């Protein structure tokens, strides 16, 4: 008890502790001090819950700008921006038909910074879609999906699908004309397996299309049930799924051995420049071999000095740079361009033309030939094809190199020409001369479902890729051909849908030619 008697020294200690509290708080939060030595640079990474996803040292190949262009991280950064701005928008948004539109107007005209935050949300979503596609192209063209990274390629495809799902569900929420009719079309695409079941005459007993549409809309029209469902998907279900898959995606990047690099990366990249933070300043005098513990081969055995640098600061500063540039890009776009808000949704009068967001206009071009094949059939074939790529291509030449090294450039150019040529050619025929329905008005629908400009394009691309496989005796050549054609087709169809389609989905060289009404 005598310990508790007040004494001048006790008070002094208390004041001293109080004064030291900020410093000791920092010490307790960042347990290992400033990252100045090899040891503290390492503990900086694995002693931090957010950073320990990274490895302590990063190969210099992974840090080259041209290895990734930072695209994957840019997509994640754009997602973070949508997350923050989305939560802010939820303060005012009300998911009920008329109220939704009014709250959008409030956000646009009344809420302080509301218009800017909404612009930012919309532009970050756009940036995310673009960077996700570019990231996929990067991984494909550097053949970074190969063993042991096959599974992560599939996780990436899942992330692509969720990204597009988030965009689609977000598109309905403003409840304006654009939103209403884009979602009506989208919901009917979900119902389009009926095109097949109707033609076969089994819709009465087997109707997956109707079930899909009803689960999506909760009704037989786009109404309040549809809005609340899209809202729940947009703010809860899909973001949660995205975060879970994203965690798996990042974790697998690390577990699969970091970014893919060619076997001779060390030779290609040469010795580090003299001003780089030196490799292993405190070189260990003994090496400890963990062969008994680590499964598989240990990569460093029999190699020269590692060509790695500490992740802190090299990797983290690069990542910080990508985060800042992406945010800056979103900010700049949000400042110069407002997100659109048309008049209140009117279920009686369709918007003309009713256009989905730009990244779905390629699909909309395809559904203008056949709802089922364009909206479900061809996208499913594309997704399955993309998912099969890492399991079909088991070669190892050119992993980690753009286009598998300079010898692959010709192949990509050739595939680009075929991809663009076929897409533009088929579109030109369909626009100039129409298609089977115009030539033979009584033709059964089943024929058009399976033979239309969209499916013809897919078949041409498929045959071209098979020819490439046979000619080059390489599955990778076929995959490059198919993927390049797929990208070219996507770009051509999206451009036509965006810039050259006007009222009644007719072809116009420019919006200034659209008829006035």
């Amino acid at each position: 008890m005598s310990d508790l008697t007040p004494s001048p020294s006790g008070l002094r200690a208390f004041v001293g502790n109080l004064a030291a509290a900020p410093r000791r708080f920092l010490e307790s939060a960042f347990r290992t001090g400033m990252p100045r030595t090899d040891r503290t640079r390492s503990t900086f990474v694995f002693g931090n819950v957010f950073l320990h996803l990274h490895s302590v040292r990063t190969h210099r190949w992974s840090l080259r700008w041209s290895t990734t262009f930072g695209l994957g991280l840019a997509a994640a950064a754009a997602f973070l921006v949508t997350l923050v701005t989305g939560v802010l928008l939820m303060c005012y948004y009300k998911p009920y038909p008329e109220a939704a539109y009014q709250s959008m107007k409030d956000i646009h005209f009344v809420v302080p910074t509301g218009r800017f935050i909404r612009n930012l949300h919309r532009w970050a979503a756009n940036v995310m879609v673009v960077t996700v596609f570019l990231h996929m192209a990067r991984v494909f063209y550097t053949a970074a999906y190969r063993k042991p990274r096959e599974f992560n390629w599939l996780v990436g495809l899942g992330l692509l699908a969720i990204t597009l799902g988030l965009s689609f569900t977000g598109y309905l929420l403003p409840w304006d004309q654009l939103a209403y009719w884009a979602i009506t079309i989208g919901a009917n695409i979900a119902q389009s397996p009926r095109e097949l079941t109707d033609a076969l005459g089994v819709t009465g007993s087997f109707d997956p299309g109707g079930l899909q549409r009803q689960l999506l809309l909760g009704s037989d029209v786009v109404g309040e049930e549809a809005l609340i469902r899209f809202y729940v998907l947009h703010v809860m279900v899909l973001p949660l799924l995205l975060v879970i898959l994203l965690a798996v995606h990042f974790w697998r990047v690390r577990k699969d051995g970091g970014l893919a690099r060619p076997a001779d990366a060390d030779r290609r990249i040469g010795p580090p420049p003299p001003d780089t933070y030196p490799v292993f300043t405190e070189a260990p005098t003994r090496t400890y071999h963990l062969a008994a513990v680590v499964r598989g081969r240990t990569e460093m055995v029999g190699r020269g000095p590692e060509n790695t640098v500490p992740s802190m600061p090299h990797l983290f500063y690069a990542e910080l740079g990508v985060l800042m540039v992406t945010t800056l890009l979103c900010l700049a776009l949000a400042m110069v361009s407002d997100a659109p808000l048309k008049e209140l949704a009117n279920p009686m009068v369709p918007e003309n033309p009713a256009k989905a967001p730009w990244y779905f206009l390629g699909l909309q071009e395809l559904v203008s030939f056949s709802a089922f094949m364009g909206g479900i059939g061809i996208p499913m074939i594309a997704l399955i094809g993309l998912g099969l790529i890492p399991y079909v291509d088991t070669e190892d030449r050119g992993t980690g190199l753009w286009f598998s090294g300079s010898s692959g450039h010709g192949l990509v150019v050739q595939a680009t020409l075929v991809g663009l040529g076929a897409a533009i050619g088929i579109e030109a025929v369909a626009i100039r001369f129409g298609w089977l329905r115009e030539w033979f008005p009584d033709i059964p629908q089943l024929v058009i479902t399976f033979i239309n400009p969209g499916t013809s394009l897919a078949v041409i691309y498929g045959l071209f890729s098979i020819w490439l496989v046979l000619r080059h005796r390489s599955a990778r050549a076929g995959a490059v051909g198919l993927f390049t054609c797929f990208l070219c087709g996507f770009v051509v169809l999206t451009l036509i849908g965006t810039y050259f389609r006007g009222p009644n989905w007719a072809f116009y060289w420019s919006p200034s030619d659209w008829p006035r009404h």
Partner: protein
Amino acid sequence: MNTERSSAPSRLDPEPMARRDFLGLASIWSALGALAFAAIGMIRLPKAAVLSSPSKKFRVKLPESLVFGQAYVPPGRSVAVFRDAEGAYAISLVCTHLGCIVKCGDDGFECPCHGSRFSADGGVLKGPAPKPLPWRQVAVTSAGIVVDDAVTVPAGTKVKA
């Protein structure tokens, strides 16, 4: 210790599958089965049993001035009602392609979304629509014409007053 093997199974012989393995596998599979069952049950909830859309059956009073073969679209409905010498009839205005509302022209219907064109009796002339516009059931009563937008009748069914 008896080393001689008898042909009758002994309780000391190893079982074909260890009892604990069997119990473990059985419990895992029954848990997975229960999960699958629960997942199917969860789809039942979002599939609405009652649709909230307004009644599909409604009464129409055709204006006296309506010319034969000219479309009359009741406000808030996506059905065109016609009258000619053979009687009254109704054609749905929901495009069979992707559900946009088609516009009534002079000699047929036009869809603004993907350019489908239909003849005056709903047949497909052009574009991606897979089916003709369906004709709807019409009943002529003393109180006026009653249209049921949920019941399809064969094309050409006209009802005399």
